[in-house]
């Protein structure tokens, strides 16, 4: 009895579908959400295999190409697909350096090219990259020429690091902060909200008041205060963990309210009373009868919480209170944009923002689709 997401016709009749299958049916109709789901899956695959998808290493500097703008692509029969070469020139009047076309530096591009060796997840050695400059198609290529034939899809930063490679490798942290943080707020939300709804009475009132107090704190100063409490001598891993805890400490309240409200209303449903009269234990009623009834709502709420977490990490790191260099995340990369002059002269430094908007929009569309699909028994 398998059910395929994109089966032309459901193999089973409506009568025999369970809730998950009905939900999938309804979700499929939300094309934008399905597309967003696939794009997000792509993003996460990219984050997991980031050294493979990034053409360069995240610390790989090329001092010949400081602040190099994004290179244009070209195509001809002789070189195939290539990146138009640039070289730095100094303006004789202003003494500013700028980049001019340099056809001798045109770099042929290819997929699955040989590049700088790396270790995937620190274990698997490889030197293949998903795409990049293909040295095998450069005539009389000599060792050391990698620094001459380059491709900066999204430009380079003040150290000549490839911004696109850093975006790809920073996504590992930026995208996972959301998931880890959401897992923590899921724990807080379900446990505290569940207790609040199931116990009711004074316990419920107390917990709801605490939630209101937490919600009434201004979010950004609260984050800053919590993040400032992180000792500055902590390593990147500890800081990362502290940041996710900080973010989830403030974001569980929404989920707790959803859980509490649902349990309050479902607790008096006839089938919950029936289960109690059958002799079912409290955990059995909670986990077998009550929680499955709104597992979909939990998933929706969590999906809509993730973008907030990602944005939170970025804001904190941007303000210098989250992750710090040499860790690479989107927020850390945006620290370079603190300087307005840098943004005016080198607007491609803002490229992480585009990725951020893209990821957040995907999560929102996915959440919208899931929310519509969450209750398949609703008529429309």
């Amino acid at each position: 009895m398998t059910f395929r997401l994109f089966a032309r016709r459901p193999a089973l009749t409506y009568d025999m579908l369970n809730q998950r299958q009905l939900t999938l049916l309804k979700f499929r109709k939300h094309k934008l959400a399905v597309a967003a789901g696939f794009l997000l899956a792509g993003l996460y695959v990219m984050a997991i295999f980031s050294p493979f998808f990034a053409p360069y290493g995240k610390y790989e500097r090329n001092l010949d190409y400081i602040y190099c703008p994004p290179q244009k692509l070209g195509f001809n029969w002789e070189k195939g697909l290539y990146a138009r070469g640039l070289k730095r020139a100094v303006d004789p009047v202003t003494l500013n350096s700028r980049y001019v076309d340099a056809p001798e530096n045109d770099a042929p591009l290819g997929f699955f090219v040989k590049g700088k060796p790396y270790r995937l997840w620190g274990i698997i050695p490889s030197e293949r990259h998903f795409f990049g400059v293909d040295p095998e198609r450069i005539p009389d290529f000599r060792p050391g020429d990698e620094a001459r034939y380059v491709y900066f899809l999204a430009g380079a930063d003040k150290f000549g690091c490839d911004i696109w490679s850093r975006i790809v490798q920073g996504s590992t942290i930026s995208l996972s902060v959301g998931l880890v943080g959401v897992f923590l707020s899921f724990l807080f939300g379900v446990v505290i909200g569940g207790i609040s709804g199931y116990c009711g009475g004074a316990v419920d009132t107390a917990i709801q008041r605490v939630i209101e107090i937490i919600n009434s704190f201004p979010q950004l100063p609260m984050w800053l205060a919590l993040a400032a409490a992180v000792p500055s001598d902590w390593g990147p891993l500890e800081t990362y963990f502290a940041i996710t805890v900080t973010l989830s400490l403030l974001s569980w309240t929404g989920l707790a309210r959803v859980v509490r409200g649902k349990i309050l209303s479902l607790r008096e449903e006839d089938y919950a009373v029936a289960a109690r009269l059958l002799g079912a234990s409290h955990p059995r009623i909670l986990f077998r009868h009550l929680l499955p009834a709104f597992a979909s709502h939990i998933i929706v709420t969590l999906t809509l919480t993730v973008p907030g977490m990602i944005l939170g990490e970025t804001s904190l790191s941007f303000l210098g209170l989250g992750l710090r260099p040499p860790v690479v995340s989107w927020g850390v990369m945006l620290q370079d944009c603190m300087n307005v002059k840098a943004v005016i002269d080198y607007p491609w430094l803002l490229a992480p923002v585009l990725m951020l908007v893209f990821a957040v929009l995907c999560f929102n569309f996915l959440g919208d689709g899931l929310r519509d699909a969450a209750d398949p028994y609703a008529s429309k």
Partner: protein
Amino acid sequence: MNIYNINDFNGSAANPPLLAVRDLCKYFPIRSQGLIRRRIGDVKAVDHVSFDLRRNETLGLVGESGCGKSTTVRTILRALDFTSGHAYFDPEGDGRYIDFGELTARELVPLRRAAQMIFQDPFSSLNPRMTVGGIVAEPLVIHGLARGKALEKRVDEILVKVGLRPEYKTRYPHAFSGGQRQRIGIARALVMNPKFVVADEAVSALDVSVQAQVINLLDDLKREMGLSYIFVAHDLGVVRHICDRVAVMYAGRIVELAPTEELFERPLHPYTRLLLGSAPIPDPDRRTLPPNPGEVADAGNLPAGCAFAPRCPHATAACRAERPELRPAGTDHLSACPRMGE
């Protein structure tokens, strides 16, 4: 857990009841508005209710909406906690009674095998996320009564018994009609072979034709499995058809209790007469208006005397001063009207 015998609650030794309810009360507090919510009164939903349920008997519990029928049976089964009173129940059939009112939640669990409930609403009483097989098997799983093949077999058996095909096991409740869902609810209640089943308005939500099928099914199952029912209803036709005895409730109290035919032929309490007179008669030429409909009593603010006195055409000053108790009024007939002889 205390064990009681028949003498502890003044039961009939010749015909020992399966369930003896004594002075059952269920009050809901009325609280003041504001920060400190003081208890300023009680809604006396069930007030000193006493009756016996005999073995292999169907006892009807009738009355208008809000009179406390459902609260009574739900309290007996401890879906709600007792305010006071006792409900002595003989789970083994050997004359050793336990009191539902004083058991802890843990002590109640094994008793669930012997006392079960069928719900009114066949749509909300089945978990929409579980298959029919899962719903019917759940009691057996909870009490560890069967597993594996034996479990499947028992579920198939009970489904056939309530008139459903065993193939339906893999389907979900939303695929069934109201009548079929009620059969699923009945299967779930009966799968553990209980002794005592509460049918809380079990047919009220169904179509008339389906009602008849379900009532006949309940009647057949009663004979087959030796069940005793408390049958809560507001449809007097249904009650007359299925019940051996009928208790009439008004404002949280039983006002009359008699064998079915006796009650319908010779009602003694004015409220019973009003209730019987209000039942529609399927004859276009007969127009029967209730003699004195009046206002339903407010359970949160009952009059000092008989709760029915404000609506009663025969009420006297004595009726309004003191609350009348149930008194014998002929063979097996109890009534709470002090003027019933006149």
